[in-house]
């Protein structure tokens, strides 16, 4: 992670390892740096180590090895209540026996703040999430989205510089989730707080974050801004995990600079951009995004590579068409085309020719 080491580190994980049973590592040699004011998302499938990392940062788990620094100071031995980190939990963890106001008052009370100051801050925090009228309600009397807002307000009310969020939107329905994604990023940027956000939802990660760390198998597979992550996945896992992806297996035939020729298992030869293949004869998996595949000859750019395909299925989805093709032996090759007046609607059984630009076709590791 040489890229991250160079950044100004407000939160730094330095060679952190974590094991629960002394035999297997849940987190393997984690190095990560989060800049002040940055919104970083830890994205990964369940069991990838992302939540463990968050819990180590919050202080609920201890690192087995390595060091975690906050604002330059090691915090391994600082108990959670002295770290001053705001946290939003998966199920909000609003105290059910306290009203909304009491929930927000709690972090201020334990800091010994005077009542009048508390009231001002509580009101400001509630207004911030547009929940000013709910101060006397109990959490059980609130909807999921409202509870979410209160949990957010509670994590922010004592003005922490760092806020952690553990899949905070998982329990909300789609529409509300999209709305809250927007609210959270707006607040985070307005207040200038540093946010570490954990999710397994890639859309959430892409839409909200400044940087996304993709976790798998206890390691960060790639740490990049969303667009780079999507368009330039560094390896097969990231390519598969982020967005939809077509893959074709083959062997590298030749490499010249930033281009290579791959012989697919079906025998076809295609051009691709080598990403983490290094020598001729290596097995590779090439990855092409469905929306970069084109069947309309007139729309194909100069230098595009073409290949024969058989239409297996045509799905009308309104704004786009999804066409399932058989390409070089792969029967799950998806082509996504925009619904435009000049766009062709294929029928199953049609034999067509499709194409893509070599730079959109990335030759990745074959695992």
């Amino acid at each position, binding site marked *: 992670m040489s890229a991250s080491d160079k950044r100004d580190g407000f939160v730094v994980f330095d060679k952190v390892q974590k094991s629960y049973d002394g035999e297997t590592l849940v987190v393997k040699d984690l190095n990560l740096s989060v800049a002040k004011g940055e919104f970083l998302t830890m994205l990964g499938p369940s069991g990838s180590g992302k939540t463990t990392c968050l819990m180590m940062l*919050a*202080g*609920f788990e201890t690192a087995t090895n390595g060091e975690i620094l906050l604002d330059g100071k090691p915090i391994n031995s600082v*108990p*959670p*209540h*002295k*770290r*001053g*980190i*705001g*946290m939003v*939990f*998966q*199920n909000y*963890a609003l*105290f*059910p*026996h306290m009203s909304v106001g009491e929930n927000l008052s*709690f*972090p201020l009370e*334990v*800091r010994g703040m005077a009542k009048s100051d508390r009231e001002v801050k509580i009101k400001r925090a509630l207004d911030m999430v547009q929940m000013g009228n709910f101060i006397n309600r109990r959490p059980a009397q609130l909807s999921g989205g409202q509870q979410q807002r209160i949990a957010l307000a*509670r*994590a922010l009310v*004592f003005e922490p510089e760092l806020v*952690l969020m553990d899949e905070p939107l998982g329990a909300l329905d789609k529409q509300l989730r999209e709305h809250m994604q927007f609210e959270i990023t707006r607040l985070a940027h307005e207040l200038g707080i540093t946010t570490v956000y954990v999710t397994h939802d890639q859309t959430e990660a892409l839409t909200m974050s400044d940087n996304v760390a993709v976790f798998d198998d206890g390691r960060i597979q790639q740490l990049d801004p969303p667009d780079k992550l999507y368009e330039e996945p560094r390896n097969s896992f990231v390519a598969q995990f982020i967005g939809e992806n077509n893959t074709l297996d083959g062997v590298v035939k030749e490499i010249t600079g930033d281009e290579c020729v791959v012989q697919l298992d079906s025998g076809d030869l295609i051009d691709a951009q080598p990403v983490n293949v290094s020598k001729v004869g290596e097995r590779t998996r090439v990855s092409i995004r469905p929306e970069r595949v084109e069947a309309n000859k007139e729309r194909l750019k100069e230098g595009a590579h073409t290949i024969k395909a058989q239409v297996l299925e045509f799905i009308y989805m309104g704004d786009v068409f999804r066409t399932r093709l058989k390409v070089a032996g792969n029967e799950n090759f998806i082509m996504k085309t925009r619904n435009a007046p000049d766009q062709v609607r294929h029928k199953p059984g049609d034999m067509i020719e499709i194409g893509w630009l070599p730079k959109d076709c990335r030759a990745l590791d074959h695992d």
Partner: protein
Amino acid sequence: MAPSDASDTPTAIGNETDSKGRLLTSDGRPLRAALQRANRRRKLTALGLVAPLLAFILIFFAYPIVQMMWRSVDNPAVVEALPRTLAALEEWDGNDLPGEEVYRALYEDMLADEELPRAEQKMGPLAVRLNYEISAARSAIVRTARNVDEMEAPYKEAFLDAHRLWNDPTIWRIIEREGRPLTASYYVAAVDREYNAEGEIVQAPENRQIYVALFGRTFMMSVVITFMTFALGFPIAYYLSTLPMSKANLLMIAVLLPFWTSLLVRTSAWIVLLQGQGVINDMLVALGVIDDENRLTMIYNQTGTIIAMTHILLPFMVLPLYSVMKTIPPSYTRAAKSLGATPWTAFRRVYFPQTLPGIAAGGVLVFIISIGYYITPALVGGQDGRMISNEIARHIQSSLNWGLAAALGTMLLVSVLILYWLFNKLVGTDSLKFG
């Protein structure tokens, strides 16, 4: 469905009204009636489902309780045995011995009783009943009745000769007072009162007062036991709730073990542990904590009862607590800590308040059960570790004063109900969680 038929479309239902302005269904019936008909069937089904349990409770729970309450005031013995005597006593002034006519009436009652078949004779129950009120009444009745056919007028003299008690106006006052089908005397006795010569209710002599003090002690000990089960049960329930299911179940077995152990085994175990020459004392002596002359008395007294009952009743506290704690996710405490609370504050202000329903349920269970406990106190309680139930059991099993037992039982029941009502007022039963 034809879209043109407006009354059949969903939006049109309910828009029709009859002359009184009530809503109608699509086929013209009042909507309210249709709803009631639809609900009636559901109510019948519900009734059918609860009926067996309801019948069971009525027969085996409500009926015996009502019968017990009835027995605490039921007073047939005097009325049935001495109808003539009671009639004659109406003329009596209540001060000196009654006149000849009363003794003659008593003679006639006894003679009439003699004629009845044995199982229907009333003098036996009368003797038992009057002996509760005054000692030696049993022999006065039974011995006099046995020889009544040899008696001759004047009867007053004959009775005075037969037994000294007939020479005592007290027994006549008692016969007159108890010559009614209902009596309050069992309750009078149950609160350590008695009737004086003027028929007023006064404090019983100090050396015969038992029940009020015993009620007080029973409540006090129940409170102590409830607190002990809480103090011991809370940490273990907390620990159990943090363990994975398999380990928690294993430990739970250890907690539940007293449930499955027979009373005798349990009692012997306590005796072996707690008695003067027992394991604990031996250990303390061996360790030099106490010397051999001053062994601790931990059994056959209040301490013994409290230790034993705390042991038995612990599961009743642990189970509701555990089931409540199990539903409190660790994220609450974590949230509190992340908000800056120390572990103690997080426990006190966030975790503990959420366990209150479990504490309340466990407390109510343990308290109510311990108020009614009697076998254990009888075996390990010695003289000062006994409870009111031991007296009730004694009156049911050996002294056979079932009326007094019923009065004491009713008082116990009513006091538990009052406590429950108070509890409901203060805490609210809807917050109870019995697990």
